[in-house]
């Protein structure tokens, strides 16, 4: 009986893993070969869902939208977070206040932040457009112009998440031994050179972590476009996750939605592998 004890102790987790992770993953893969609307019996369709996916213009547009979001969101996030971390890494008065202030948006509900920004960016009554009008610069359709909407969302998402990455970078910066900087200073290195040749290589693992985290976070973009634009205008803010959700819970195409999810997971995996190689080469 005694030899079973460890197994019994880990069994709650194993059970949880089997029920809430392994089964859904396996079931989702099985679902990709079926047509199912939840309430009718499952119908085997072979590779029809995959065939449909290849010709689904909207899915590829949603993937492209998500990539466009990432192309703005990630560099912007890293640049701002790193700059803020550099500034917060100094011994200045009120640094604790600023650290808390920058972190505050991270802990505020995403829905609340999104609604707040929706008001800020409103064409007719938004604060931003009122300021532009006061400066005689004319209004901008931040969320209603197909060419701009996704970038507005990217800026908003950056504002929301930058505090978290600032803290991560701050931890990274504080782990760089001070002696390196002292030695560099003795050698006459400028601040930029210190950053370029000491800070940047030393915090590279943090940069990689931030890139991967914000990539995965960015790929799961949903709340912001769902609330602010509902995927519009003209599907330019329709994210891949939102499209998967739409197929599942608006049309009840569970099989096709699972296929989209499965393929999208492969795309994320591919992108993260590429990133990893690229960032490791950079190191």
């Amino acid at each position, binding site marked *: 009986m005694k030899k079973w004890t460890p197994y019994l102790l880990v069994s709650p987790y194993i059970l949880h893993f089997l029920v809430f992770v392994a089964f859904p993953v396996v079931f989702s893969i099985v679902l990709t070969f079926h047509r199912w609307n939840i309430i009718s019996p499952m119908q085997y369709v072979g590779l029809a869902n995959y065939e449909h996916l290849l010709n689904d213009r909207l899915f590829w547009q949603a993937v492209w939208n998500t990539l466009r979001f990432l192309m703005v969101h990630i560099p912007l996030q890293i640049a701002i977070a790193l700059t803020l971390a550099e500034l917060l890494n100094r011994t200045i008065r009120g640094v604790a206040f600023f650290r808390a202030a920058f972190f505050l948006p991270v802990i505020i509900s995403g829905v609340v932040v999104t609604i707040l920004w929706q008001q800020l960016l*409103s*064409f*007719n009554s938004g604060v931003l457009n009122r300021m532009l009008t006061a400066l005689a610069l004319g209004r901008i359709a931040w969320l209603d112009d197909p060419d701009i909407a996704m970038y507005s969302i990217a800026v908003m998402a950056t504002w929301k998440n930058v505090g978290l990455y600032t803290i991560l970078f701050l931890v990274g910066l504080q782990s760089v031994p001070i002696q390196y900087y002292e030695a560099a200073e003795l050698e006459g290195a400028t601040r930029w050179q210190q950053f370029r040749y000491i800070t940047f290589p030393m915090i590279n693992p943090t940069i990689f972590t931030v890139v991967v985290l914000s990539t995965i976070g960015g790929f799961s973009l949903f709340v912001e476009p769902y609330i602010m634009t509902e995927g519009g205008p003209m599907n330019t803010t329709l994210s891949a996750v939102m499209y998967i959700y739409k197929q599942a819970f608006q049309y009840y195409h569970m099989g096709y939605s699972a296929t989209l999810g499965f393929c999208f997971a492969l795309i994320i995996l591919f992108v993260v592998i590429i990133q990893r190689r690229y960032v490791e080469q950079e190191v």
Partner: protein
Amino acid sequence: MRLDWKIIRGYQLGLWCLLLVGCTHKVDSDRPLTFWCSNNAGEITFAKEFTTRWQKQHPGKPLRYQPIPEGQSSEEIILASVVGKTTPDIYANMWQGNVEMYAKAGVLIPLDTLDGFLDFIKLRCDSAVVREITSSDGHIYQVPWKVNPIMLFCNTRSLQQWHTPTPPYVYADYLKAGQEFKQDKNGDGYVDQWLGYTEVKAIWYQRLFNFYPLYLAASNGAPLIKKTADGTMEAAFDNQYAIEVFRFLQTLYKNDYFAKERLSATRDPFLAQRIATQFTGPWTVEFLDKFKDPGFEYGIYSMPVPGNHTGPVYTYGDPKNIVIFNTCPNPQLAWEFVKTLVDKSGDLRLMELTGQFPRRKEIDTDPYFAGFLARNPRLKPFAQQTRYIKGVDNCELIVEVFDIISQEYEACVIFNKKTPEAAIHDAAKAVNVLLKSE
């Protein structure tokens, strides 16, 4: 050792609990019938009143009512209850477009198999309604219950001030009214007074309140999809009516007669007189009468139509119907109760308590309802409109059909990226691909 036994006992207890929960699901033919109603105050009062009356008259046939549980939407709750096999016996607020899906899944009772159903329905509704609610398999799974016709509300005093053409409108007059009424009142270079506003977002159900009622009005109530000779379904809206509706709406946006941006963050734009017209239903009447300023006057008219339009002006009725789920232990008894909700006295109480209209023929001329309409003259145009309303086509994929139309609507009407002809043709093509794939 003792720890091992405690863990094993814990597991045993957990398993027993699971088994007990799993075994409790059985059909109990003696249980009270459950009736889910919508969760707005008027309908809860309506449900309470009728279940109380039923209990008094049938003490041996218990029936309980309950507002539909809270959720993001009633559709979501119903779907979850179907999946979990926890459906009510009777549900009174089913959107007509969802019925076909549930019917095909076999979770609804074919009501035409119940004694007295067909005779009753044929007395209450005209043959067009009976045709509309008949499923593709020939059975009827829903009781046509209530409607809220979408009509044109006009701020009559405001429009008169600007010397615009008077309603009811044909497209040309409505556009002229837009030209006259549109203003930049504060001189900042942007229009801040429009003829109207209707939701621009591409979410499918918004088309039920702009494109679809206008299409029905223009086409004398034509369907969006139809059955072909070989029994398959195909798009029926690739026609001049749909094209004209798209062109009409596109012109309204192109010329800034309608606001593109959401008019939020302030008072209701119709009451604030930032817009002079809106497409909406009878639920708006109570709101307007409650919050309007002194001297604010409005009228209710049929939807705008093309200049060459003849015959009655149809609109979308936003029908909500009653269904009986197959988990019901006694469908005949459930139908007997439903009958009390939709007979003449039930229909009158629905109007009195909710301000909504029963889907019954000749409400506007039936003396039985005359008193109510005399007391509520604002609702008279809706009562007259109930003669000429349509629901949605009986098709499992109707949501996707509307979604496809909605995508093209956005491209053509809102962003002017396509001609109306191309947009409608592309939508019809996509709908045909969709219908053939099923």
